[in-house]
């Protein structure tokens, strides 16, 4: 297999909560790789740490209250992003690794035109002249499929719809042709029809520009349609990782099973009630002992409460799961 482009190892991002009520271990020892040109889906419920993971890569966590623990390691182009000096970090942000966010309407600055906002990164990173940067911005608007791009260049964000704003965000993120695009819930705030358009756009741009995409989402449907590989997160940890087809056919972790059972599917009878995972994600200040999923897990036994499982090889290529069931599959049988 190819060398990974981005290597995340033992990432720990903690937040000191107010009034000293403890430390929220939002991301607690996350490791994964991102390969050139692939789309990696990162999936999990709200509060599982997927957004904090994505923000930590570009060190966009507000400090204080957040901090990335020493010992964490994010390797990109042979360097640890977590130890870069501010100028070195700026040269990566928006240039080699770019990011788009969940709320396109509030992620654009209301007092500058979209043309200026797209051109800004090109001026800063590539030292283009104002005129050249404006031409580049126009080119980008055309690339992301915005109708009448010349006129949109001088529009302000409030004059545009949410879908167009997200296209502008994508244009802005890709203006320097980054190696990695981190997309944090890029379609969550948009209408369903617009969602599909944005995902298609990302796919097309990936084919044209060849960047790797880290797609953060809570929607397994999006993952099934767009991602090559999937990382499932729960309670600040990676609980399962597998190529997409493998995950959808042979999910090993009960949490992943639960997520899948809670999505409506065309190949199941429509009358069946959708499954929901009992309980909520526990508080990040107080993760459960042993396996963090055990209070909500239908299979949990003594070992799960006492001992935290490592990521175990399941036998499938590149498929690991953080579950004792991988070592003792007979326990799954006994219950059913």
């Amino acid at each position, binding site marked *: 297999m190819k060398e990974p482009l981005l290597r995340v190892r033992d990432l720990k991002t903690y937040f000191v909560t107010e009034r000293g009520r403890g430390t929220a271990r939002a991301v607690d020892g996350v490791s994964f790789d991102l390969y050139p040109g692939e789309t990696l889906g990162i999936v999990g419920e709200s509060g599982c740490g997927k957004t904090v993971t994505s923000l930590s890569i570009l060190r966009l966590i507000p400090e204080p209250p957040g901090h990335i623990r020493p010992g964490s390691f994010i390797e990109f182009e042979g360097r640890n992003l977590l130890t870069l000096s501010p100028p070195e*970090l700026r040269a990566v942000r928006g*240039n080699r690794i770019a990011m788009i966010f969940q709320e396109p309407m509030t992620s654009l*600055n*209301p*007092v*500058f035109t979209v043309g200026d906002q797209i051109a800004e990164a090109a001026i800063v*990173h590539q030292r283009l002249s104002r005129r050249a940067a404006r031409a580049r911005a126009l080119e980008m608007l055309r690339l992301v499929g915005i109708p009448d791009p010349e006129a949109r260049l001088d529009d*302000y964000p*409030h004059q545009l719809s949410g879908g167009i704003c997200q296209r502008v965000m994508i244009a*802005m993120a890709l203006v320097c042709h980054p190696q990695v695009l981190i997309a944090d819930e890029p379609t969550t705030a948009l209408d369903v029809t617009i969602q599909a358009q944005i995902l298609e756009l990302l796919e097309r741009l990936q084919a044209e520009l060849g960047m790797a995409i880290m797609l953060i989402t809570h929607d397994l449907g999006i993952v099934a349609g767009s991602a090559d590989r999937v990382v499932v997160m729960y309670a600040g940890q990676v609980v399962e990782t597998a190529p997409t087809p493998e995950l959808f056919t042979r999910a090993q972790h009960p949490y992943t099973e639960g997520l899948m059972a809670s999505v409506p599917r065309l190949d199941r009878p429509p009358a069946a009630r959708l499954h929901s995972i009992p309980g909520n994600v526990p508080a990040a200040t107080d993760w459960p002992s042993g396996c963090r999923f055990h209070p909500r897990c239908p299979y949990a036994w003594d070992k799960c409460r006492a001992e935290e499982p490592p990521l175990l090889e399941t036998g499938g290529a590149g498929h690991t799961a953080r579950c004792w069931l991988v070592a003792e599959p007979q326990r799954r049988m006994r219950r059913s």
Partner: protein
Amino acid sequence: MTAWLVRRCAAAIAIVFAVVTLTFLLIHLAPGTPFVPSDERVLDPAVVDGLRRQFGLDRPLGVQYVRYVVALLHGDPGYSFSLRRPIGEVLATTVPNTLLLSGAALAIDFLLGAAIGLYQAARARHRADVVLGNATLFLYSVPTFWLGLVLVLVFGQHLAWFPVGGDRNPVLYPSLSLLGRLGDRAWHLALPALTLGLVGAGGTARFQRAALLEVAGQDFIRTARAKGLHERRIWLVHTLRNALLPLITLFGLALPFLLTGAVLIETVFSWPGMGKLAADAIFTRDYPVVTAAALLASVMVVLGSLVADVLYSVADPRIRLGKGGARA
């Protein structure tokens, strides 16, 4: 834009007219009359009656009001009872004095205040922010006249670096060169302008810091950081531009002060401006002067909010007047 401006101006004229009417009524209804004999001024009642007749004060209030408004519409604000000069002449000397003091004070207030607020916000919750936060809170809560007296005591009296009052050297001024005159005015201006400016800057800085920090937490600032912009550019361009909007409102509210003057500070520093004029006129029941001062003040209030609206539409594309977005 033009239609909007016409509507605003019509409303402005109505407001000013209402203020003049109310002031006229209130000051005439207030107890006390002009030309009362005082300890130093023993007046024959017959003389007082003569003066009242001379200025038309013996006529019914309605007649006086109509006469006043008609004269005002002809550009004649009347004649000051106590100064015995036409009010137009009086204003010609006091208005520039007040403009000078208030203008300098406003400049210190907003430039220094905005700069301190920006410095604090960029270092929020660090030591420098805490120290400056306490300093601005102190300035903001100090009464201006007290700070004025302390500055006079320290820099005027003990150190004798600055004059203790007045707007120019009464003896030497006429004989000074142009440069010397400018220097003399600036030297007299320093303490009162600094007093007003510092107290204002305390409030402005606190306001600006809060506005900046609110903007700094917005999604688009995270976007700017994710783009790889320098922190300086994030603060000075992306954050400041958005945080200026509330400051413009503050500025619009402060503008009237340019002409109303600061009564207490003009009194402490014997500064011959509008504030002192208006205060003296109220004590002597100098009706036309009081009304003229209220007229100027209301014109400035209306003008201030108009200027703020125009500045707002320049700074914020979402409320730009005329083309595009929503109308204000």
